[in-house]
């Protein structure tokens, strides 16, 4: 597939999400919903490859860090991998550590990386909003490692950051109301601060 531009991304997003707030059978039988579920079916038929890739990433991480296949089919629009950059001695309660989250879209051949901070043993697990892919330090090196593996496994490109916040008019993406969903919400995940 040739490189997509703004209009191309918007057109594809509208292909997989119905306009308006459909409920029940009307939602499940909408052609857009069926296309979305078919895209997931195709992806899940080869999901073992994603799992193997996550294991390869994990094998290259410094001691103490972990990586998991946290994909939630249908609950998001992407296969997901979380890399937990815990300190070697383990996290201390209330002391945040970074998580690099990778999303490989099931709708377009693009991936997206971002960073969260989480703390164990406190009421608030995730602190602060998602932050852009880190480019420096240990976080940057881990993000590069994850990106390299995703590109090798899928042939996907990184989603252009200039398109992230463009609103897709009309469509209803999961729990968002029409007019709220951005391209990042529609093509990847609309609850990016919500990880296990």
């Amino acid at each position, binding site marked *: 597939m040739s490189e997509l531009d703004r209009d191309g991304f918007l057109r594809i997003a509208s292909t997989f999400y119905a306009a308006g707030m459909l*409920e029940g059978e009307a939602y499940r039988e909408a052609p857009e919903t069926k296309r979305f579920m078919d895209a997931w079916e195709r992806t899940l038929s080869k999901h073992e490859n994603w799992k193997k890739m996550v294991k390869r990433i994990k094998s290259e991480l410094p001691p103490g860090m972990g990586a998991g296949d946290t*994909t939630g089919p249908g609950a998001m629009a992407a296969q997901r991998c979380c890399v937990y950059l815990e300190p070697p001695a383990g996290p201390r309660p209330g002391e945040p550590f970074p998580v690099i989250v990778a999303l490989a879209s099931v709708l377009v051949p693009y991936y997206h990386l971002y960073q969260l901070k989480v703390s164990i043993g406190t009421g608030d697990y995730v602190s602060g909003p998602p932050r852009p892919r880190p480019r420096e330090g240990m976080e940057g090196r881990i993000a590069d490692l994850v990106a390299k593996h995703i590109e090798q496994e899928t042939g996907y490109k990184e989603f252009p950051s200039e398109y992230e916040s463009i609103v897709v008019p009309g469509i209803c993406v999961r729990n968002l109301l029409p007019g709220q969903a951005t391209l990042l919400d529609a093509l990847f995940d609309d609850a990016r601060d919500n990880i*296990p």
Partner: protein
Amino acid sequence: MRTLLLVVALALACSRLVVGLITPEHFQFAEVVHLDDDGDPGGWQAVCILATMRNGNTGQDMICDFQVELPLRTREQGIITQELARTAAATAANKTAYQLLSQLEAGEMLGMICQRFRPMMQAWLGTAIRGARVMKCDQKKGVPTVRFDEPTLYYP
């Protein structure tokens, strides 16, 4: 576990009565993505619930569907046992139903309730199980659909 749910069994607030409980037994989760045996977060499970809500004044029924989706292991909590998944889901569903229906104004569009229900339940459930999602039922292959036919009654 049922006793945990009695918190919202019968509630009277703002002069509006809400009666009825969904129980942990309704949440028969099925595995969607296998959990790897390596100690890291992952795996995925889901169940679709078709819940009946009845306006006690008019007898009008509305079916609200919601699909509860959970990881099988989280970084903070480790393995999510079926008992925890079911109890947390039922508690969050009952809290949400009570919160929404007890504040419902007479004549308010019933259809809007489902759309408000899912994100609110997701927020409640996320405090108990990190990474939880609540969305419309989507007929995902292998995900059971469970009917909650004893309607939650509300009197707006």
